């Protein structure tokens, strides 16, 4: 069982959803918000798509509900200053009160949901669009605010500076997105936002005309129908081609582009240009061991466990994961809530035991654990919190003194194999085969049912391991010294390892051992690492056959 409170960082739609749901489930929640009010970006939106309903409606339901929950504490104007693993299962979270200039204070948390959201890309960086210099060039978010009844113009569509009515509005898609000079990724939501804005502009202002400069319209799922609906209903002009310039001299704004469909250069004169800019993640203090993608988002393990990060007890929700719209934010928040509740309820799973008789406090387990589940406790020995550990055994594989072992794993199994080989029951070449239980072992199981495989596999002794990174080199040494002709590790392909680099650890360790064997005048080819996916039975078979052939050619182990 997880201990302590759950902290939800960020009071936007994802954070509010998560805090409210966890609160309803009876969990002690602390909801942090940097700003002095809740609601995040959603609070500034004019309409949601596809129904064009006002965001206030859903938001107020959440806010009222949180108000009524005594177990949800809301801290406004509070920023997260740091997160440290305190002890297994417990994080120390440093908070800074932005109203007071005081030092950060700390609270303890059993879990954290990072719903820190994202910000719009700074459109001023796209110099050719003139954002910041040309008053008529605004971002999609600014258009939302402009049209809200509480907005600066009382919800009327007028030019933000001149106050004149706006009749011609151009939208520029992918403003800074899918562009290696700016954001290399697609934020995924901007196309639909533009369509929505076109719809409400046409609905609310009868004499408005709209243009869209785009590369592709990306409206997955049912949003494709929304796209068709807007296109057919409001006849905006679609120009496939990114504008090369926006010129603000004279009346209006002149946008020039190359229409790649016709191969003709086009230009238009508009009252307002709306930049559909992408999202960048909000800044967050580094949390040790929490992996971000190249852009600073927390995508989790895609596709199997998108909310699950490499630090158990920390989940990401909403735009902290990747750019997404409200619908996906709510969905991802609910997914994080589900994970959090599961963790609160879950029984301890399989986790390694520490042999304190042998442990030397070297800390390699702490450094190599992909999940930060292993810390050196007050007595200096590694402590593993069952709730944090995902049983990959990378610590077991790396421990130089073999003093971390998952139940049922360890030297005993190797000794049994060696005894079998020494008893002479195993035909040569005798191969010890470690199989990753995720992929390679199921593949092996299918393989052994095949009759034609039986003859080849006679000398192969399989051992299933949770991850190929859990294979300790001392096991391999023991097997080689005990007379095995070769050792094969069948794990996941390096990029596909379910345990964040277990296969890479195995590769590095094996390379080192091969070098040592080379110095010992033993063929390094007696060790082999291969990536096997779950449907790779045939390839596993051919790899084993190839390896057996290599071993047969090399002859019996020089250790014999």
């Amino acid at each position, binding site marked *: 069982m997880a201990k302590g409170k759950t902290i939800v960082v960020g009071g936007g739609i994802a954070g509010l959803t998560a805090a409210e749901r966890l609160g309803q489930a009876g969990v002690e929640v602390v909801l942090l918000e940097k700003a002095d009010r809740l609601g995040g970006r959603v609070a500034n939106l004019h309409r949601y798509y596809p129904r064009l309903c006002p965001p206030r409606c859903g938001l107020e339901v959440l806010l009222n509900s949180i108000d009524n929950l005594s177990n949800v504490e809301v801290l406004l104007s509070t920023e997260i200053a740091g997160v440290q693993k305190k002890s297994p299962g417990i994080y120390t979270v440093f908070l800074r009160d932005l109203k007071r200039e005081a030092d950060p204070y700390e609270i303890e948390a059993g879990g954290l949901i990072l719903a820190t959201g994202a910000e719009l890309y700074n459109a001023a960086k796209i110099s050719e669009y003139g954002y910041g210099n040309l008053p008529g060039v605004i971002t999609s978010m600014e258009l939302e605010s402009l049209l809200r009844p509480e907005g600066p113009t009382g919800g009327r569509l007028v030019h933000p500076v001149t106050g004149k009515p706006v009749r011609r509005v151009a939208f520029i898609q992918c403003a800074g997105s899918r562009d290696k000079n700016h954001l290399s990724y697609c934020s995924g939501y901007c196309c639909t936002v533009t369509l929505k804005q076109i719809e409400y502009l046409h609905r609310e202002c009868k004499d408005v005309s709209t243009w869209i400069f785009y590369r592709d319209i990306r409206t997955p799922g049912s949003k494709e129908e929304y796209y068709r609906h807007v296109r057919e209903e409001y006849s905006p002009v679609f120009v496939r081609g990114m504008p090369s310039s926006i010129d603000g001299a004279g009346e209006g704004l002149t946008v020039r582009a190359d229409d790649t469909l016709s191969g003709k250069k086009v230009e238009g004169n508009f009252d307002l240009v709306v930049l559909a800019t992408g999202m960048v993640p909000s800044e967050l203090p580094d949390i040790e061991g929490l992996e971000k993608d190249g852009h600073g988002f927390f995508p989790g393990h895609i596709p199997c466990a998108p909310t699950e990060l490499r630090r158990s007890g920390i989940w990401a929700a909403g735009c902290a994961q990747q750019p997404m719209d409200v619908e996906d934010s709510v969905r991802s928040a609910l997914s994080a809530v589900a994970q959090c509740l599961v963790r609160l309820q879950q029984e301890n799973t399989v986790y390694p035991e520490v042999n304190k*008789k*042998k442990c*030397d406090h070297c800390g390699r387990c702490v450094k190599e654990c992909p999940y930060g589940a292993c810390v050196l406790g007050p007595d200096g020995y590694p402590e593993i919190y069952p709730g944090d550990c995902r049983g990959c055994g990378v610590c077991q594989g790396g421990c130089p003194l073999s003093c971390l072992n998952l139940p049922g794993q360890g030297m005993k199994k190797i000794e049994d194999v060696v005894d079998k080989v020494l008893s002479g029951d195993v035909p040569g070449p005798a191969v010890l085969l470690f199989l990753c239980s995720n992929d390679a072992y199921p593949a092996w199981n299918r393989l052994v049912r095949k009759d034609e495989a039986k003859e080849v596999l006679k000398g192969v002794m399989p051992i299933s391991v949770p991850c190929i990174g859990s294979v300790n080199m001392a096991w391999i040494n023991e097997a080689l010294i005990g007379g095995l002709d070769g050792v094969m590790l069948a794990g996941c392909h390096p990029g596909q390892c379910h345990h964040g680099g277990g296969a890479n650890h195995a590769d590095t360790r094996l390379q080192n051992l091969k070098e040592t064997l080379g110095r010992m005048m033993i063929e390094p080819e007696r060790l082999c690492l291969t990536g096997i996916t779950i449907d790779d039975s045939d390839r596993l078979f051919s790899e084993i056959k190839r390896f057996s052939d290599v071993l047969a050619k090399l002859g019996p182990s020089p250790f014999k």
Partner: protein
Amino acid sequence: MGKNYPTTPQEVQEMQIETDILIIGAGNAGCYAAIEAKRQDPSLRVTLMEKAHIDRSGCLAGGMDAINTYIKKGETVDSLVKWSREQAGGLQRDDLYKTMAELLNQSIEEWEEWGLPVKKGENGEYLARGRWDIAIHGSEMKVILAEKVREYGCEILNRVVATNFIMDGDRVVGAMGFNIREGKFYVIKAKATIVATGGAGGIYKPYTNDGTDSHHQIWYSPFNVGTGYAMGIRAGAEMTTFEMRWCAVRTKDFNGPIDTISVGYNAAMINARGEKILAERYAHLGGDKAPRYIRANAPMEEWLAGRGPCYVDTTHMTPDQIKDLKTDYLNERPSFVLFLASRNQDISRDPIEIYGSDPYIVGGHTASGYWIDVKRGTTVPGLFACGDVAGGTPNKFVGGCAAEGMLSARGAIDYIKSGMVSRINVDESLVEKEKNRVFQPFVRQLNVGDGITPLEMEERLQRLMDEYAGGVHQFYRMNRERLEYALKNIAILKEQAKFLVATDLHELMRCNEVIDMIDVAEVLCHHLLYREETRWPGWQTRMDFPEKNDDKFNCFVNSRKNLETGNIEMFTRPMEKLVD
């Protein structure tokens, strides 16, 4: 130099620890003492203070290939006591040896139970290698022992160098020392203290010392520098029989053991003419069964007489035997196998050359060390001794050190239970004084920046001892004049210790070690000077008194430092036989 440790005594962080039993030195004897203390009374707090790391410290760091004192079927405690006394030239504390011998087999059998592979014959009995010897695969035996110490819940302080005992009046109530990782000063108060630091290597210049990469190419652990002796000397403890040095025949140029070969595989020592040295030249002293010092000195005498080089004759050995022999070495001194390989030496054709080692003070082989009672209590109340540092019990070896460790733990517990220690009073000024003494080389480095490095002083001492106190280059020979010369210079060295400088914690340790070595060397010279006879040629060869003098010297020569005058006072204790 990244300064992440204190360089002046004022900056030193002090660690205060209170414990029931403090064991200084976590080698074989110390570990066994710790285990036994916990076994006798699990409620006791047992603390081990170890200069290195318990897994690989002391003489067993590299491993061990045989147990040389196991009482097999047909032998008895008494027969072992008698044999040992003969090997030691008649001088041995039978009372100590007997009590130790009673526990010898227990320690080995336990070790096996904990995971030490002992070679067995077809009958399931331990495989005999000689009369008292059994063969083991002991390369990991220290690791196994350390695991057991941890399992019993002893507190282990690795990398803490002991420098002096803490005194409460005339009692020892713990020890002080410093940590060579952070430079913390440890004040460990204990109801009883067991010293198990091992003997003293490196007092003499090794002949392998080329000044470059083979300075520590000696047989005995070069990291055992006699600190336990030195602390006892400085605390006024009575020491015995330092003059019975341990000089051994070892493989030449690589100080590997040869009992493995000569005892294990019946390989005789031969001289350059191919004569079997012991059988042909020492038949009157027992031939192959001649006492150890005779066996040790014989090849050196051959060399001196112009019949060197000498060898152990391995040319009769079968390929299987050679493989076994090399395996034995891998279990104890692995790089001897590398040494042979580096010379392309096929020992079935070329015998292994032998030569004498530099002399060591090692109570596990000879009788030198603390003067103790059967409970292993020293002459200073509260202080117990075991292993190489305890005197009177030659031929203890690995099993004996373990057994004696157990005895010292029992003695310490009796002492605690006797109620003699009620409260520990420590004069804080003594702690301050010791801290200043220990960190003095840092202070000099900081204030003066110039002085003597521990290496320089160590090499000066080694040369002095080698040339004037019977080192290997002098074929172990000495006389009064040389010894007096040595003592005169040792006095200068002691005075010069204040010039020692250290630039890091490792060097600070080395500075304190060399100070300890000089204190041991001083007492050693007094002992060598006092025994005006030659009782054990080689171990102790007085050119001015070349004969044995039983009338005067069939007794123990003991010493004690007069703490008021600082003089080493010499006297004798009678030899008492318990077994005939």
